[in-house]
């Protein structure tokens, strides 16, 4: 019995798994409804196909966007508070240097990045997950800048005004979507990481 248990290692704590999946659900709603809102007055000379959007029309999309906003903010506060207070961020994301990130990204591109111990993130993962957190923070503040350019005009001013806050909000969304696409591609390439994000455990590589 003990020998069998010893083969499993705990990789992701419960709170990380729960906040991860709430986040995945919330971001899907935010991005799909945000694309519909974008289509009402496109910033760039292209539109997002309506089939990929959520809400049916502008009012519906806005309802989704401003409902999921609360879910994501509460979830994000829970995750970041846990990450800082428990030392999760310090242990999992650091140390992190540009050289190690470069080395591991190159390794990943060559298909030579080892995933022996899923409880330790490689430098490419560390950089990507930290970038997602930074993107989320920029999205929240640029979103507030667009939503409340009078009441929270100090935040809007940080982004250089209402119109540039819209551009920042859109481009940060694009960056976040890009990272998520790479993230999902990596999960497909290393499928055993997927059940780990649900059960929290991984079989120790022998």
């Amino acid at each position, binding site marked *: 019995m003990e020998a069998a248990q010893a083969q499993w290692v705990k990789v992701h704590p419960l709170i990380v798994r729960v906040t991860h999946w709430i986040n995945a659900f919330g971001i899907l709603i935010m991005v*799909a409804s945000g694309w519909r*809102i*974008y289509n*009402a*007055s496109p*910033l760039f000379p292209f539109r997002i196909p309506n*089939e990929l*959007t*959520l*809400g*049916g029309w*502008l*009012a*519906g999309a*806005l*309802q*989704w966007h*401003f*409902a999921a906003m*609360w879910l994501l903010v509460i979830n994000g506060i829970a995750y970041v508070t846990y990450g800082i207070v428990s030392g999760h961020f310090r242990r999992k994301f650091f140390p992190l240097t540009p050289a190690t990130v470069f080395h591991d990204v190159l390794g990943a591109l060559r298909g030579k990045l080892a995933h022996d111990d899923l409880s330790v993130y490689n430098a490419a993962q560390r950089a990507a997950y930290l970038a997602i957190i930074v993107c989320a923070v920029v999205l929240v503040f640029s979103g507030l800048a*667009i939503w*409340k*350019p*009078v*009441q929270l*005009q100090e935040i809007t001013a940080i982004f250089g005004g*209402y*119109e540039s806050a*819209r551009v920042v909000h859109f481009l940060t969304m694009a960056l976040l979507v890009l990272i998520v696409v790479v993230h999902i591609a990596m999960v497909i390439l290393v499928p055993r990481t997927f059940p780990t994000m649900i059960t929290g455990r991984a079989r120790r590589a022998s």
Partner: protein
Amino acid sequence: MKRRTMETSLAGHSPKLIRSIERRLFLKQGLSLGALALLSGCELTDDEGVQRLLMGMSGLNDRAQGWLFNPNKLAPEYPESAITKPFPFNAFYSVDEVTLVDGKDYKLELEGLIREKKPWTLPELYELPQTSQITRHICVEGWSAIGKWSGVRFSDFLARIGADTSAKYIGFTCADDYYTSIDMATALHPQTLLTFRFADQVLPPKYGFPMKLRIPTKLGFKNPKHIMSMFVTNEYPGGYWEDQGYNWFSGS
């Protein structure tokens, strides 16, 4: 039943043709299934339970915005050089369908919790102390434009007509069948103006002649044009877009 009819009608044709038609039908059905799956986003939004949840959240957002609203926080004002030219026209109809109101016969009707309900003619309104602002109009669609509006401070007008400013709402009905309503705190904001002029000219029909309530602390659709009557009330009056699902408070 259907299948048998098809087989009968195809009787006499080569099995190869039948297979090809069947294959095409299968593909077509597969495509409709795919389209249905893609539509699920819309269908999800149409679901009654989801609708209730979304409307509930929109009500929560009304309260959150009411709480966040600072009656002393001023919308940024801009220099004349920042004015957007030409200023965009926007309504639920096209610019060639703009309502033309006859200024000579015009009277602003007052109803509800107001002491002096005497209707106001345009010359009477033009005689009130006027003020100007150059502010950013932000549309719910996302675009924005800077314009100059002039008129009477709405809080002064409300004081003059003896409006009950402890009431919750002020509603507006417009010549183009538009209607909307705002909260009292926003109505009393120093930058909320009952405007008669745009870019130093009499408000042209496309921008809302004879008057537009300019509220720089709210989205564009909360700024009614062609106002015919206004009423003070404690009963939620809704609005043209608000009743279709747009957030009621829609503050900036």
